[in-house]
């Protein structure tokens, strides 16, 4: 394995963390969007706010991390992807603006109408942003991004079966992860009702994600042959691991078990992402640009690895600290502290 491979691994690790934590935040927005206006829906939204409020911004940084590592270490791939996929990436950027500002504004908005508007901006963009990101990944996977400045088709590169399916898979996976996380959050929140509510949704999302993945087998075989071949050979053990984890979560949820669902759900997502990585290796852009060909100067690659090393030492403990504080309910926003975590006498 070369230095370039190591940097690609760093990039893939960033993508994995973004898919798990950023993906779950997108999923939370998905559930907020479809929670409805009833009393149940409002409570579900309250839980979502409470659960992701302190962490979503930190989780979002993984996206920035991926972008900067990609353009620094693999600038040819970055500029090829960004220019050919101008439309879905512009839409994803728009989604990111509406989502972040919608979330930041909705708790402060005084009038109900404005609050609803901010909530809808947050919810809808939580659905559309991962979808467009998925179409981008699908475009790369199916070899529709040629090297160069806007050399691919501006429309069909991302409006095709592989892209649409990957987009749907991204949305479903985020919703699935989020629902599994929210079951535990509902327990911390002291709301058994919401625990059942999100258990049902986790089951539904797991089945939906599984169905899309199965459909993906056929679509990828037809149109993203390189990835398909990789997933069914070198990547196969990881695909199987992912399926086993996914089925494990289903079985646990079905039996009403909560313990172990989160690591298993994360395992299912991580395994499939790394399976994909193994399948795509050694290509950055399948069959046109390898990691080796696309890598920048070795001094730059070393620089990225050094900064990543520092990040492991500084950022990961800090992130862990944030998650621990958050999971122990030591971080509180405005007013609505739930019963379960309210200190006695307040």
């Amino acid at each position, binding site marked *: 394995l070369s230095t370039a491979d190591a940097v690609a691994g760093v990039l893939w690790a960033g993508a994995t963390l973004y898919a798990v934590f950023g993906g779950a935040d997108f999923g939370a927005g998905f559930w907020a969007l479809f929670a409805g206006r009833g009393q149940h829906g409002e409570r579900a939204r309250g839980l979502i706010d409470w659960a992701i*409020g*302190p962490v979503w*911004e930190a989780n*979002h*940084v993984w*996206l*920035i991390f991926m972008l*900067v*590592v990609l*353009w*620094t*270490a693999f*600038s040819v791939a970055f*500029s*090829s992807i*960004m*220019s*050919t996929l*101008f*439309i879905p*990436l*512009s839409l994803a950027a728009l989604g*990111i*603006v*509406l*989502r*972040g*500002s919608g*979330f*930041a*504004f909705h708790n*402060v908005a*005084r009038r109900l109408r404005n609050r609803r508007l*901010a909530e809808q901006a947050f919810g809808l963009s939580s659905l559309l942003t991962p979808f467009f990101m998925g179409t981008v990944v699908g475009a790369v996977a199916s070899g529709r991004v040629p090297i*160069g*400045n*806007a*050399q691919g088709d*501006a429309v069909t590169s991302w409006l095709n079966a592989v892209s649409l399916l990957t987009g749907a898979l991204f949305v479903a996976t985020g919703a699935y992860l989020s629902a599994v996380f929210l079951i535990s959050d509902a327990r911390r929140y002291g709301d058994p009702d919401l625990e059942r509510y999100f258990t049902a949704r986790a089951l539904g999302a797991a089945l939906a994600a599984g169905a899309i993945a199965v459909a993906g087998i056929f679509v990828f075989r037809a149109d993203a042959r390189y990835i398909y071949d990789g997933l069914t050979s070198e990547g196969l053990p990881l695909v199987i691991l992912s399926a086993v984890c996914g089925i494990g979560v289903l079985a646990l949820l079905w039996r009403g078990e909560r313990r172990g669902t989160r690591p298993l759900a994360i395992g299912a997502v991580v395994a499939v992402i790394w399976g994909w990585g193994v399948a795509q290796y050694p290509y950055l852009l399948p069959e046109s640009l390898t990691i080796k060909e696309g890598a*920048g*100067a070795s*001094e*730059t690659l070393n*620089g*990225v690895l050094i*900064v990543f090393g520092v*990040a492991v030492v*500084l*950022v990961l403990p*800090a*992130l862990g*600290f*944030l998650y621990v*504080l958050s999971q122990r*309910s030591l971080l*509180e*926003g405005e*007013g609505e*502290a739930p019963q379960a975590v309210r200190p006695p006498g*307040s």
Partner: protein
Amino acid sequence: VGADRVADAISLATQIPTFLAASSELTPARSQMAFTLGFHIVLASLGVAFPAMMLIANYIGLRRNDADALELAQRWSKVAAVTFAVGAVTGTVLSFEFGLLWPAFMDRFGEVFGVSFVIEGLFFFLEAIFIAIYIFGWKRLSGWAHFWTGVPIVICGIGGAFSVVAVNSWMNQPDGFALGANGQVTNVDPLDAIFNRATAYEVPHMILAAYLVTGFLIASVYAVGMLRGRRDRHHRLGLLIPLTVAAIVTPIQFVVGDTAARSIADDQPVKFAAMECVQTTHRDVTEYLGGRCTSSGIKGGIGIPGLDSWLVGFSTDTKVTGLDSVPPSDRPPANTMLHWAFDAMVGICTLLIGLGLWLGLAWWRRRDTFPSRWFLRATAVSGVAAILALECGWIVTEVGRQPWVVYEFMRTKQAVTGASGVWVTFSIVLLVYTGLAIATVLVLRTLAHRWRTEEIAEGEVPYGPREAAPLPAAAPPTGGSS
């Protein structure tokens, strides 16, 4: 005839998309980049400097057991939460735009300056983590522990600003690479790229600008409140903390900016010539305030003979390079705008130094009745003025670098995307960002209104309930020495 007209209009209308698609993407790409950067730079400045103001208030609150200062810090943290969120997403848009609008630039030079952005990513990560802990930590963390979770935000803000502005400095003074026989990039040295010649003056100039803008902007909000008759201790603290910081920073900024201008006369003489509208290289160059830049020099404006030469080399005999030193295709556009932007920035900074002196003088002479209405009025406009100076400075840097994206290595038109439709995205960006600006202001006003009208809800007291007891219910008399 009417039908013909309609048909003409329709055929014209159908040509619009073709026209837009056919015309170069350079103009909309530059417009979109300029607009989104000009928007983000204000939020980024708040992101860098606001946490420091917040922590000063927090420190005063803890140190003196001052409930007002603590409450102020808590409110500011809620404001910072909003501006940080908006700044985070507008900053993300910029990361996208590097590739969406300037893929050829990134393709060729990403490996040279990129490491600086990876470092920025590290700082931004820590900033996002600790700002979340700080904002959400008011209720359950103990006072000093909570204060210390805020300190990394300040450090990372400065570090992040350094990393980002180092890249802009690099675009002005490219270093850390060589060009091979076919124009390919070789001999990359990321550290040389980060510590290029312009980093030494551009980075401190921008970090100080962030503190200056934030200080005057927050102070101006409280000055308006005081002009409306709200003269409680809250407003006094809210005015004095940021204004004191800004008053200290402004004279330093003047010196740093002066050094920067002199360095630019050395490093990018054509940019300097465009800023001052020096058409031909000569000695004893007149410094003009205002005026219109024409091909035969400045028309109108106030001229001070020899001053421009003196400012560049401390002697009227100093030779100043003129625009004629390079062919017209290598000169920046819009020289009158550049000249005005430069003058406006320097002029506003000078006035703001005056405001700082006024603060010091008023404070020293009569601290009891301070501040006067005229002082408050001046402070009330200082925030907008400081933002204007910030934008002017940014225009000088960016437009003054044109037609280059990488000074003397790559032209902006070579960097632009081959994708079509940037006019469309620019139009959407204009609409969305206008909405975003309005919504941000409305949300902040809502917060302010809520704080003015509502009693503090139970559980809103900082560090409650554990620490609520030792805090005095009313503000202790401090003699106004904060």
